């Protein structure tokens, strides 16, 4: 059965595109046929993070408007043969996307893929509501930081009101993915703790992705973190999150400060 997943957050810069690429690649590695779809019309970036920026010919809007066939626009990943990208348009504005167009494209994708992972643009306007419109599952990406948590709360409200499922009286399955988590700072009480965020947003936790230099390195070279360095803490967190999305019951480990006591007592931070 095909599932449509939206990766959303409200706030920009929290890691939606990174998470879309990572979860898409992880689900593909788990053997599912996956399409990642960039809904950020005008400011596309998923192609760049996936390393497919030079292979884009047709895009989501071309398909939605009937100017190209779906198979012409889908870009097959060079590393994983069951992972595909449907890029966003860079030249059109977001009004070029209509609900009917999106519905038709999602419907076609549902026939061919196990997972359709939609990368939502930031904000709560048309682009974001269209990205979540036909979702069965939502991954709300948040940083442990006040503005991100507030925006996530708004997005959760929209998921419960503006999606097709909500209008049918059904629920969109919602999960929280906490990204850029810094165990040291959380330990010092400088960053909202996992429990704080969970209590405030009250949706189940899908995973905690620690702040990692590897994430930037992976996007520099155009590779999902899962494929770039599978052993990194961030990649492992995404892989576990993907398994949980598939129904596996894995306990979420809260990253802790792993520096030794000596360093914690006498080590000085550079900054």
């Amino acid at each position, binding site marked *: 059965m095909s599932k449509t997943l939206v990766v959303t957050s409200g706030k920009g810069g929290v890691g939606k595109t990174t998470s879309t690429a990572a979860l898409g690649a992880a689900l593909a590695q788990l053997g599912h046929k996956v399409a990642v779809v960039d809904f950020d019309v005008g400011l596309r970036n998923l192609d760049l993070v996936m390393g497919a920026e030079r292979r884009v010919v047709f895009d989501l809007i071309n398909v939605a408007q009937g100017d190209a066939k779906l198979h012409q626009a889908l870009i097959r990943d060079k590393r994983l043969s069951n992972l595909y990208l449907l890029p966003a348009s860079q030249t059109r504005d977001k009004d070029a996307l209509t609900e009917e167009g999106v519905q038709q494209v999602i419907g076609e994708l549902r026939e061919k893929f196990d997972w359709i992972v939609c990368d939502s643009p930031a904000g709560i306007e048309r682009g974001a509501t269209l990205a979540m419109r036909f979702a069965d599952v939502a991954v709300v990406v948040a940083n442990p930081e006040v503005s991100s948590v507030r925006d996530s709360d708004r997005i959760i409200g929209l998921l419960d009101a503006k999606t097709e499922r909500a209008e049918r009286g059904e629920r969109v399955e919602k999960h929280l993915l906490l990204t850029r988590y810094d165990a040291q700072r959380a330990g010092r009480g400088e960053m909202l703790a996992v429990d*704080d965020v969970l209590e405030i947003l009250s949706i189940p936790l899908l995973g905690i992705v620690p702040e990692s230099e590897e994430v930037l390195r992976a996007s520099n070279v155009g590779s999902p973190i899962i494929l770039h360095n599978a052993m990194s803490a961030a990649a492992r967190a995404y892989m576990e999150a993907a398994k949980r999305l598939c129904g596996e019951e894995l306990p979420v480990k809260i990253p802790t400060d792993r520096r030794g006591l000596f360093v*914690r007592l006498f080590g000085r931070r550079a900054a």
Partner: protein
Amino acid sequence: MNIFGLFGRRGATAPVARERLQILLAHERKSARASNLIGVLHKEVLAAISKHIAVDPDKVMVKMHRKADMSLLEIDIEIDSDAARPDDPAFDENDALEDDLSGKAA
């Protein structure tokens, strides 16, 4: 400094963040519900009327007009002349009136 960091919570700003968020979100969630008031009212009015009369959802209008010193709630429901359920005693009078009217027409 680092030793204090281990035992004390002098630099702990997270509890402040948590408290501010809880207060703010409680307020925002309340106003989000209010902005959906029209939708909720529309649904419930429609459900209440539909128990007795067949109504077209598009013909139930709920509007709220807000002014500085007062608010006006306007509910406008258009029903077909033959929509009333005949078995409901509440509509006896209406039926009689309709019979009367059709009698006159005939």
